């Protein structure tokens, strides 16, 4: 059972806190000889697999590391262009690690703002007045739970679909926020949260919630 991440969004829709607690890594590292049987192409700032899915390497996976050294966008650690490097038979055999790329902090900011807008639309669409807004977004691989306080702060938790007790966890995160972020006199409201105590207590709360297992606390 896992809690994947926690997001805290302020009233204006800006992301003020983000924690990746557990990321199921599905990286695959393989050694290749020339010529490469996968088709790679550049996409945004990365090099992704376009064709030739096999052995755990799927279309859309990005090149994460070459010969053990993590890549830097479209360039290797030494600064060479990846596609050029892999086009040269002299560089083979080469060991490449593929996997789903992690979201950059800018991408997370954009996604948080988008969710904030969707949340607002959801509340407006409600046939009854006084809707709580989106409380849960369910997919086959995760559930996104959201709790908006009366003051407009949103707490979002992405967790395994079988994980229970997330409502209690959201309330607990609200308590931790009101204690360690708000009572810190050097923390300005609506700004990114950079409080050590908040981090520590949040991680503790996540561990307690995970240990409780799929049947709730006491299982």
């Amino acid at each position, binding site marked *: 059972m896992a809690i994947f991440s926690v997001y805290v969004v302020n009233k204006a829709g800006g992301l003020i806190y983000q924690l990746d607690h557990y990321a199921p890594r599905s990286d695959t590292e393989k050694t290749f000889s020339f010529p490469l049987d996968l088709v790679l192409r550049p996409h945004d700032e990365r090099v992704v697999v376009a064709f030739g899915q096999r052995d755990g390497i799927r279309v859309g996976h990005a090149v994460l590391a070459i010969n053990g050294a993590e890549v830097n966008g479209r360039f290797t650690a030494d600064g060479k262009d990846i596609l050029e490097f892999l086009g040269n038979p002299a560089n083979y055999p080469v060991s490449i690690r593929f996997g789903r790329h992690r979201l950059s902090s800018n991408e997370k900011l954009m996604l948080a703002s988008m969710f904030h807008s969707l949340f*607002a639309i959801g*509340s407006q669409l*409600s046939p009854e*007045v*006084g*809707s*709580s*807004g989106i409380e849960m977004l369910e997919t086959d691989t995760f559930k996104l739970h959201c709790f*908006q*306080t*009366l*003051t*407009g*702060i949103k707490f979002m938790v992405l967790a395994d679909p079988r994980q229970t007790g997330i409502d209690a966890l959201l*309330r607990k995160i*609200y*308590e931790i*926020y*009101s*204690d360690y972020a*708000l*009572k810190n006199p050097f923390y300005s*409201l609506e700004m990114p949260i950079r409080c050590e*105590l908040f981090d520590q*207590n949040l991680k*503790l*709360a996540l561990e*307690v919630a995970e240990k409780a297992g799929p049947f709730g606390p006491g299982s």
Partner: protein
Amino acid sequence: MSHSPGRKQENHKISRELFVLTYGALVAQLCKDYEKDEDVNTCLDRMGYSIGIRLIDDFLAHSAVKKCRSYSETADMIAQIAFKMYLGVTPSVSCRSAAGNEFSLILDKNPLVEFVEELPAERASLCYCNLLCGVIRGALEMVHLAAEVTFLQDRLKGDAVTEIGITFLRKPEDRKHKRN
């Protein structure tokens, strides 16, 4: 002062005297810093405001109250739950206007002024507990309720009771269109 994960009220008592003394020292220092009573009152109100904007989330997180549907529910909540939680007293609430947006909280016991009998002659218009007005104003603003909060009567100034007046500034119908 660290909190254990399962925070219970009884583990974290600070002495009430220390709190009252701290507040008294604060007001005394402000009186030394500012000559005019209005300045001291404004300063206390501003300080209270910055406390209120943070205290509201603590109140909501620990009391698990639901959204209030009317101004009178809000005033009741302030008096019966918030005052009880933070100061240990329960003022009585009365509605002051026919429109239903002006309320009074009548405090018969105010812990902040336990050791003060009356204001000195040169500070006749000082609102000693103006911090409380700022706290209420700040807290209400964070839940999107603009309000004016002032002391209408003050035992320290010779009135019979201490009365805090809360005037909500926006019509209830406007709230429906606000983002939930």
